[in-house]
C-alpha cells in the first residue's frame, strides 16, 4: 500500500511537471482585432454583463442589443447574467477565460482591470491607442489612458462613473446655506445641521477597507495636490505633504463628528442607505446616486441637490473625481472576433451612447454625446455637471493594481475606523512602503 501511494504521488508529480513544461513551450500570440472581419453568415455572440436598468426600470442591455442587431443583421447578441459582486465576477471570468473558454465573447468589466487582464492574456488587445487617434480623441484622455496597457487598448468604454457631492437642498435652504465649495464649508454646515437635530450624520462617504476607501482617498489626495503614483504608475508618490493632509482630513472627519465612525465600514450601498433614509446631510457617491436618492423608496426624494466635489480651502482644482466605470472587453479565445469587436466598439460609439444617455442614468464617456443639449438638459443634473469633472485615474496601469490598492486601503481604513487615533505620518509611510513592494511584484 505504501509503495502504491508513493507511486501515485511520483506519477502525479511527473505529470504535473510535464504538463507545465508543455504550457511554457507555446506562449501564443494575440490576433489582430481590428483586422478581423464581420462574417456574412449569421453568428451568435455571448455578452456577459450585469443588469443595467434604464429610466423606466427596463433592461438597457436589451434596448442596445436590439438596436445593434438592426444595424448588424447577421450578428445575434446573447445576454448572459453575471454574479452580483465585482470580485466574484472577476474570479468567474478569469477562471473561465484562462481555461481557454470561447464564451463569453464580450464581457463588461471594471475600469481597473485592463492592465491586470492584459498582463495575463485575459483580454484581447484592441489596437494601439496612438494609431487610432480618430476613434480615441472622442474620449477624455484619462478614459483612453485607463483602458490601455503598454500602448494598446484592451477595452472599449461603455459608461463612466463620476463622483459627486449630494446634499440635502431642503435643509441647506432652511438654514440659508449655499451649496458648499470647499471641504471646510462641508464640515461647518454638516456640524450645524447635526447640532440643530435635522440629521443624525453630517457627511457620509465610503471608508470600507476595500476599493471604496481607495477611491475616496485618491480623491482627497488629488484635492490636496497629490497622487498615489505618477501617471505611468511606475513610481509611488503618496508619501508627501499632500498624502498626510488627505489622511488627516479623512480621519478628522470622524474625530470631529462630521462623519460617523460607521463610514469605516461603509461601501456605496451603506452610505446610500444612510443618505436616502434621511439620516445624512451630505453624501459622496457616484453618478447613479441621483436616481437612487430620488427614487420612489427614498425618504429624501425631491429634496436633493448635487455638485461636483468641492476643493480644500486655498486648493486650486475643483470637481475632481476618481474615474470609475465599466467597459467592454473581448475574450481573446472568441471564435467570432470580428463580430465581438464590432459589438464592443459599437457600444462605445455615438448611436449606442446616445441611446444610453437619453434613456438611462449611465453617463456616456463619449464627449460629443455628453455635450449634446438633449443629454445635458435632462432632469438629472449629473449629466450637465459631468463635462466639467476632472478625472483622477487610479494606478490601474500597473498589472499589480489589486495589491497596490490593498496597501492603500489596509493602511487608510484603521485611521478612519479609530476616528484618527493613530499616527497619520506612519500610516502614509507604511502605505507607500506597501505600495512599492506591491509594485515590484513582491507582495501577496
Amino acid at each position: 500500500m505504501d509503495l502504491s501511494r508513493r507511486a501515485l504521488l511520483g506519477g502525479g508529480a511527473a505529470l504535473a511537471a510535464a504538463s507545465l513544461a508543455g504550457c511554457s513551450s507555446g506562449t501564443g500570440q494575440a490576433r489582430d482585432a481590428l483586422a478581423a472581419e464581420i462574417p456574412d453568415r449569421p453568428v451568435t455572440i455571448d455578452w456577459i454583463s450585469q443588469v443595467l436598468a434604464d429610466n423606466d426600470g427596463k433592461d438597457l442591455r436589451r434596448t442596445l442589443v436590439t438596436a445593434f442587431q438592426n444595424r448588424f443583421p447577421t450578428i445575434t447578441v446573447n445576454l448572459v447574467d453575471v454574479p452580483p459582486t465585482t470580485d466574484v465576477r472577476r474570479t468567474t471570468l478569469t477562471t473561465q477565460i484562462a481555461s481557454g473558454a470561447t464564451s463569453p465573447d464580450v464581457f463588461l468589466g471594471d475600469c481597473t482591470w485592463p492592465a491586470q487582464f492584459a498582463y495575463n492574456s485575459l483580454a484581447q488587445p484592441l489596437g494601439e491607442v496612438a494609431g487610432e487617434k480618430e476613434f480615441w480623441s472622442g474620449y477624455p484622455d484619462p478614459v483612453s489612458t485607463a483602458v490601455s496597457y503598454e500602448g494598446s487598448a484592451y477595452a472599449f468604454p461603455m459608461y463612466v462613473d463620476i463622483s459627486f457631492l449630494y446634499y440635502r437642498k431642503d435643509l441647506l435652504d432652511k438654514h440659508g446655506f449655499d451649496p458648499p465649495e470647499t471641504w471646510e464649508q462641508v464640515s461647518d454646515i454638516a456640524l450645524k445641521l447635526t447640532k440643530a437635530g435635522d440629521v443624525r450624520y453630517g457627511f457620509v462617504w465610503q471608508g470600507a477597507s476595500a476599493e471604496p476607501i481607495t477611491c475616496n482617498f485618491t480623491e482627497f489626495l488629488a484635492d490636496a495636490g497629490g497622487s498615489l503614483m505618477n501617471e505611468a504608475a511606475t513610481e509611488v508618490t503618496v508619501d508627501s505633504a499632500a498624502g498626510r493632509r488627505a489622511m488627516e482630513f479623512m480621519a478628522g472627519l470622524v474625530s470631529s463628528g462630521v462623519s460617523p465612525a460607521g463610514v469605516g465600514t461603509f461601501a456605496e450601498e451603506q452610505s446610500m442607505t444612510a443618505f436616502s433614509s434621511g439620516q445624512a446631510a451630505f453624501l459622496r457617491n457616484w453618478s447613479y446616486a441621483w436616481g437612487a436618492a430620488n427614487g420612489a423608496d427614498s425618504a429624501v426624494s425631491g429634496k436633493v441637490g448635487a455638485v461636483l466635489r468641492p476643493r480644500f480651502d486655498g486648493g486650486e482644482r475643483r470637481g475632481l473625481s476618481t474615474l470609475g466605470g465599466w467597459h467592454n472587453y473581448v475574450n481573446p479565445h472568441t471564435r467570432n472576433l470580428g463580430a465581438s469587436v464590432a459589438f464592443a466598439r459599437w457600444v462605445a460609439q455615438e448611436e449606442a451612447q446616445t441611446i444610453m444617455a437619453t434613456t438611462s442614468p449611465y453617463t456616456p464617456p463619449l464627449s460629443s454625446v455628453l455635450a449634446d443639449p438633449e443629454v445635458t438638459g435632462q432632469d438629472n443634473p449629473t449629466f450637465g455637471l459631468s463635462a466639467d469633472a476632472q478625472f483622477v485615474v487610479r494606478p490601474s496601469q500597473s498589472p499589480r493594481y489589486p495589491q497596490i490598492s490593498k496597501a492603500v486601503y489596509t493602511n487608510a481604513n484603521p485611521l478612519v475606523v479609530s476616528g484618527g487615533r493613530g499616527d497619520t505620518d506612519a500610516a502614509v509611510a507604511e502605505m507607500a512602503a506597501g505600495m512599492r513592494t506591491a509594485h515590484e511584484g513582491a507582495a501577496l
Partner: protein
Amino acid sequence: MSSTEKAPTAAATVPPQRGGAHDKGRGGARRPAFSGPRDAMERRMARIGWLFTAPSLVVIGLITIFPIMYSLVLSFSRVRIGYDGFVVESMTFDNYVALFASQDFYYALGFTVLYTVITVAVELVLGTLAALVMERLTTGRGWMMALMLIPWSMITVVSAQLWGYIYNSSFGVATWALEGITGSTPLILGEPVPAITAMMVADIWKTTPFVAIIVLAGLVMLPQDVYEAAEVDGANAWKTFWQVTLPQLRATIAVAILFRILQAFGLFDLPFVLTGGGPGTATQSLAVMGYKVLFQDLNIGPGAAVATATGLLVTGACLLFLRSFKAQVGREEVS
C-alpha cells in the same frame, strides 16, 4: 517531502487504534496483524483487489494527487496566464520569499490557528455538555437530535448570510440588541475584534451539534458495568464523569477534534460570505488569502505557495495530533 511520505504510514495506523479503543469493552481482543499475501490464493485475491480498486485509484490520481502536485510545482514557478494556458517563465524560490516576508500570511496563519483553537475548544465543551444531557433524555431524543442537527445540516453559505443579516449595522437584530444595552451603535462586522468574535459565534452555533452527535454516539456505546462498579465504589456523579466517562470517551473526542481541526483549518465559506475577509484582513483565513491571491490578484505562483504552505501545515498539525492521540490511547490500553 518527508512529511508527505510519512502521512500514509500514520494514517494507516488510525483505524486499528479506533477499533482498539472500542474493543476494550469486549475484553480487549486484539486484531490479527496484517502480514501480506502468503500463498498463491492470497496473491490472486490481492491482484483482483487491485483490479477492483484501479478505477477509483485512477480517479483519485487525476482529481486529487495530480492537482496537488501541479500546485506544488506552480508554487516554485514564476508563472502567469498566457493565451494558451500557464506561461512558466522560470523556476524560482521567490514565491516563498514573498510569502514568508508577507505580514498578511503570518496574520492569516495566526488568525486561523487562534480561530481553530478557540472554536474547537468551545464546541467541544458545549457539544459534550449537550451530549450528556441528550444521553439522559428518556423521551424525545430522536426529535432533539433532529432539531440539533438543523444548524449543522444548513449550508454554510446560507447560514453565513443569515448571520450577516443578524449582524448588519443598519437593521441587524444583534446590532439593535447591543445598541439597547450599550447606548451606542456597534459596528459588529466593521471592526476587527467584534468581527472575529461574531464569526466565532456563527461557527460555534453551527458546529457544536456535530461534536455533540459524535460524543453522544461514543456515550451510548460505553459499557454499563464500569458505571455499576463505580457506583459500588461510592463515586459521585462528578467523579464518575471525570474518571470513568471522560477517559473512555477519549478516542471519540479525538476523532471529533481531528475532524474539526481539518475543517477549521480550511475555513473559507464563513468569512467569504460574512466578512469577505475584512475589515481589512482581520478575518482573512489562510484559505481566503489563498483564494484572493490566486483568483483576484491573479498572482499564480505566490497563490500556489500559500496553498502549499497551508496544506503542509494542516498535514503537520494532524500528524502531531495523531501521534499524541496514539500515545494517549496506547497508555490507556496498557493501564
